[in-house]
């Protein structure tokens, strides 16, 4: 590295460390939560997951936010995702942490509960309705659910606290509560979903109660010196897909929640948008209708609207109906930095670092949002799948890798049925075998 290169790297805000209250990360690129179905059906981890996380650690990201890690079997989104639901999982997560740490990368486990949003509930769950704040099914797949009792809420709070404890015992660097994208926390937070009449529903304070109780329980369990961040929606956009749905939480409401989260003891806020997943704005980009036609069958037994969706995805004459609905909100927003403006509003309101996710790849844009006070770091998933060494590319002075991510979202749709990887064959000059070969590297240590 020449002197000028050293100077450039030293001056590049992306490559500057980020200090949280209890954690320091070497640069401003976080691997956002994303995963394939690498693990055993019962939620025990496998070497493949270690391989998967190592790819990004090796590629230079400052920290990895794990995949969706259920704190309980009932809260998983689909089988073959490693869980942190009992103490037997601690050695596996320790192994993951050790592997990642070997690349000077931090590992933050995303403690999650799907609530009703179980895309594939698995044989253990499929005869039971999902738990939620409400008994109304979700708007996309028609996933059934029932409103949790107070006792069940308290039980789930306990699951999160136990999950955090296990993460700390496994030597991981922190936890993130997934309170965005329509999962259980969102189902309580969102005015479009939560229809409870008890102390967990109605006012914003009541709707936020569950999340804040979890934060306090974790703090009580792991102490104040363990990194805890919360991924939350700046906007629900609950009516982005179907205009007859309620819009959900506003930015002002989200800002208030973030302040309460900070007061409750969180070390950082991770800003995203969208009250369901996937959502027209999350992840931003394309909606590969061919892929969804091929792979959506996995979801068919899960939701009461899945057959209707599949019918629409399957028949070419019907597809424009869905695409019109899917794109009608999306086309009003940028793909890259889709929630940057909302992140800025939250960053102004809180005193803790703010991460932002949603379409980041271009180094110039990342520098702009960090320097401009939109956020302190960005979390990236798909561009890192496409280019595991994206950070090294940035360090080498490239604003974009040679074969950048196209935000086509083929990886997203494939992930429900196939090994996760980049499925944009254009990036492989049309060579399907080369593309699949790259996907399969995850199985190699």
């Amino acid at each position, binding site marked *: 590295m020449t002197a000028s290169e050293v100077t450039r790297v030293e001056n590049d805000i992306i490559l500057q460390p980020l200090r949280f209250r209890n954690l320091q990360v070497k640069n401003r690129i976080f691997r956002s939560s994303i995963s394939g179905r690498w693990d055993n059906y019962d939620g025990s981890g496998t070497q493949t997951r270690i391989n998967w996380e190592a790819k990004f650690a090796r590629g230079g990201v400052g920290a990895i936010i794990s995949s969706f890690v259920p704190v309980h079997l009932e809260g998983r989104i689909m089988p073959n995702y490693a869980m942190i639901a009992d103490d037997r999982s601690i050695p596996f997560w320790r192994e993951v942490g050790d592997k990642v740490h070997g690349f000077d990368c931090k590992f933050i486990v995303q403690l999650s509960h799907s609530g009703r949003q179980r895309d594939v509930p698995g044989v253990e769950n*499929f*005869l*039971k*309705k999902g738990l939620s704040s409400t008994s109304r099914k979700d708007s996309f797949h*028609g996933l*059934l659910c029932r409103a949790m009792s107070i006792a069940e809420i308290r039980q789930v709070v306990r699951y999160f606290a136990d999950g955090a404890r296990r993460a700390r015992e496994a030597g991981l660097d922190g936890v993130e509560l997934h309170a965005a994208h329509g999962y259980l926390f969102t189902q309580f937070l969102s005015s479009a979903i939560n229809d409870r009449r008890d102390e967990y529903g109605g006012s914003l304070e009541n709707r936020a109660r569950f999340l804040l109780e979890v934060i306090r329980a974790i703090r009580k369990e792991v102490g104040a010196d363990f990194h805890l961040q919360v991924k939350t929606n700046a906007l629900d956009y609950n009516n982005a897909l179907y205009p007859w749905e309620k819009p959900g939480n506003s930015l002002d409401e989200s800002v208030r929640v973030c302040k309460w989260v900070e007061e409750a003891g969180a070390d950082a806020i991770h800003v995203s948008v969208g009250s369901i997943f996937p959502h027209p704005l999350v992840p931003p980009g394309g909606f590969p209708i061919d892929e969804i036609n091929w792979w959506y069958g996995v979801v068919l*037994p*899960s*939701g*009461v609207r899945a*057959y209707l969706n599949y019918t629409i995805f399957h028949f070419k004459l019907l597809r424009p109906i869905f695409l019109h609905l899917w794109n009608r909100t999306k086309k009003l927003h940028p793909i890259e930095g889709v929630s940057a403006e909302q992140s800025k509003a939250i960053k102004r309101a809180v005193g803790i670092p703010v991460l932002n996710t949603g379409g980041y790849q271009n180094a110039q844009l990342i520098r702009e949002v960090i320097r401009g006070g939109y956020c302190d770091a960005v979390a990236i998933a798909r561009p890192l799948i496409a280019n595991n060494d994206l950070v090294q590319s940035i360090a080498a002075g490239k604003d974009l890798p040679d074969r950048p991510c196209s935000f086509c979202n083929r990886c997203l749709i494939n992930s429900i049925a196939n090994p996760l990887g980049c499925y944009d064959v254009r990036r492989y000059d049309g060579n399907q075998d080369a593309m699949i070969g790259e996907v399969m590297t995850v199985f190699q240590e």
Partner: protein
Amino acid sequence: MISEKKQTITLKETITDRVRESPVDLYQSRFRRRITILLVAVAVLLLVARLVRHFTVDRPVDYGDIREQFKYGSIGSEPGGSVLAPVGGLLPPYWIFKTMPDICRDRLPGGYASLGLIYEKHKDLPIGVSRRRRLGFDQLGFNCALCHTGTFRNSPDGVIHIVLGMPAHQLDLQSFFRFQLDCTLDERFTAGNILARIKRAGGKLSLFDRILYRTMIVGLIRENSMRLRGRLGILLGPSVTSWGRGRVDTFDPYKGLQFNWRLEQLPAHELIGAANFPSIWNQQPREHMHLHWDGNNDSVDERNLSAALGAGVTPVTVDHNRLKLIRDWIWTLPPPRYPSYPGEINPTEAARGRVLYEAHCASCHAFGGSATGAVTPLVDIGTDPYRLNSYTFMLAVNQSSLYPDSPYHFSHFRKTNGYANQPLDGIWARAPYLHNGSVPTLRDLLEIPENRPTRFMRGYDLLDHTKVGFISNVPKEKCHACSEFDTTLPGNSNSGHLYGTDLSPEAKDAIVEYMKSL
């Protein structure tokens, strides 16, 4: 063979393994069940709505020109009311009416025209028959023009002139009813025959209609015919003097149809009441005169409505708005002018006749005459009494029960003791004369009864320019659409009305010449 007891699970248990359902399955089962129920309910509702609409639509065929409306427009005489209990109407549905002459060809070889129904060129139906969508079918009904439209010719080969408002002197209504009853009760009157002929005639019935024809319509018509024959059969039989051409018994069918009287129980003489169809032009000056031949009503509107009942209207089916259109039109409809062919009215002769007319006739027959529109007692007028006697006090009482609590309530009918003095406007077109049409020409009427023709033909529409009336001595074989009138039969007497009979032949000729101009 291995014992079944040593098997872990029996074949039967394997086959009958319970089918389990997840919450999603249960939801979808419920949803599909609800959708199915909803779809079935919607389908049933749509079907019911379609049926209700099909059977309740009431859409008459209207005409922009009032003359066309008079000839073919509806006054509500088509069957109506409820499809389950239809009321009113004297005609079968359109397609059955059209095919009946073919089905019962031997009963009506000359078609409806041979009964004196007037067909105009390029018209589907005869004058006096209206078309209206009711009870799910194109129904037919009579209107005023049936009995009040006549024809005349100036010469045997001359043009047939159709005069609206003129008595239908050519119409054999009684034979029409006979044919209708006979044919609908004929063994050939079957759904299969009817549908085949409808198809042959180019009719395109929907499957639904065809099913209705097979399952309901034909049966209903036969039932109705049996009912009509039961009620009115005696009026069509030999015990009653035939109405013949140009005449109708207005009130006896009325007794049977409107009031359900058993006609067989009435005195035989009461069932003989046929009289000429009247003209219906120039109604305004007739208001408050004693209308009908016996002068039993002095309200034009009530008389109109009563006449409509005779055409098949009922209080349920009557179309007051369209009836009023006709009422307003005939209110001022002028009488027809005497045709110029073969020559103008002789003015000298007519002038002389006018003086005589005013001296001998005007007080009873001219507008403004002291007795015009009044009833002359039978003992004074001396004409045939049957028509007078067929209208009874009891009938008048019953008529006052019609249209109760409505603006149309019948309240003007009364029993009289004679015949009303009619204004003679357009009298040249109202032959034969006297209420029962027993005197063929005006000139004959000025003769004493003994000198009046005792047998003559009715229904021939060739004008008699000399005696004023229609040629009535035409041989039977030359006039198939005629009927012979026998003045010796009950109700057909040509007696009475001796006014002017003592004048000289020249004076009588002059009066007749003058009366051409009325």
